[in-house]
């Protein structure tokens, strides 16, 4: 396909749109991460979406519905998160400075996700434990649903939540990714303790 618009012009518009503060959500797709392509969306309040879905169309519509229609791919606003993710995936970072934007979540989700945020690097917890900490020890299944719908995996570490018997149980990004993230953390957590 012949492009009549140069990529330079295209990028200049995308940068100007972000610089003028006109975007509800700026997003980008990082194709080059160790765990495959990752779509990230940020608002002026923080990161609102991290997705392993390689087809962004559905993601964009959902972002537009939740945060407003001014959703545009723009690399500058997501630069910092890109760098932090990259550092994390190389074992050079344990926590994220970019915070989550959870305004589109229900109170219950926010409460569970806040509790999830306290599970530290290299540790794991169980669905039942999270259920107990958020007020209902019998709600392990509901916790599983929240983890499955976690809008910002990795930044909010739902990969650190496993079954009571230690099995990985499930992960929206696939069990391979969950295992890879846990292995990465175990390796680097141990190294830091030496």
């Amino acid at each position, binding site marked *: 396909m012949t492009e*009549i*618009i140069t990529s330079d012009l295209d990028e200049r518009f995308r940068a100007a749109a972000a610089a003028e503060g*006109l*975007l509800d959500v700026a997003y980008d797709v990082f194709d080059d991460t160790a765990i495959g392509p990752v779509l990230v969306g940020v608002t002026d309040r923080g990161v609102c979406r991290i997705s392993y879905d390689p087809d962004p169309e559905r993601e964009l519509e959902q972002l537009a519905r939740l945060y*407003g*229609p001014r959703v545009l791919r723009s690399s500058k606003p997501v630069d910092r998160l890109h760098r932090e993710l990259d550092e994390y995936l190389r074992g050079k970072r344990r926590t994220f400075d970019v915070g989550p934007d959870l305004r589109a979540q229900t109170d219950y989700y926010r409460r569970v996700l806040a509790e999830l945020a306290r599970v530290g690097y290299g540790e794991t917890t169980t669905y039942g434990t999270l259920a107990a900490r958020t007020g209902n020890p019998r709600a392990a299944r509901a916790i599983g649903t929240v983890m499955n719908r976690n809008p910002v995996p990795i930044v909010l570490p739902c990969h650190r939540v496993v079954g009571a018997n230690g099995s990985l149980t499930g992960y929206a990004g696939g069990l391979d990714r969950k295992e890879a993230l846990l292995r990465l953390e175990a390796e680097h957590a141990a190294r830091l303790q030496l």
Partner: protein
Amino acid sequence: MGVAVPPFETFYETHKAEVFRFLRGRVGAERAEDAFQETFLRALRAYHRLEHGEHLRAWALTIAHRIVLDDVRRARPQGEMPELVTEDGRPAFEELAPLTDELPPKERAAVVLRYGYDLSYEEIGDALGSTESAARQAASAGVRRLRKEKKQ
């Protein structure tokens, strides 16, 4: 319920090539780049106030047209105004277009956007780079002028 407003990314990707071609045809390759950026920035400033996702192509071209007018005005203060965009396959615009041919450009754009595309005055003001009340005045002046012309 109209068609939902798509994410801006989709709107931009769908219309950017046509808008750029339009602008290049009107102001030349050199000035088309700035005009392109200004067109989509202006669209973005008004985008969250759109009530439905219909006629977005016409809307984008109308904004681009307005940028061309501004550009021409700056370059040739006494110059002639270029033709307004004509739309194919858009009944509302097509029906209105011949009726409004004789209107001054600003009144014509306001009338077409208001009555052809059902945009609010606030949206029209944004699209034309002016204010809600200016858009309202331009549309009503246009309608008055059309009535007068019809009587003659």
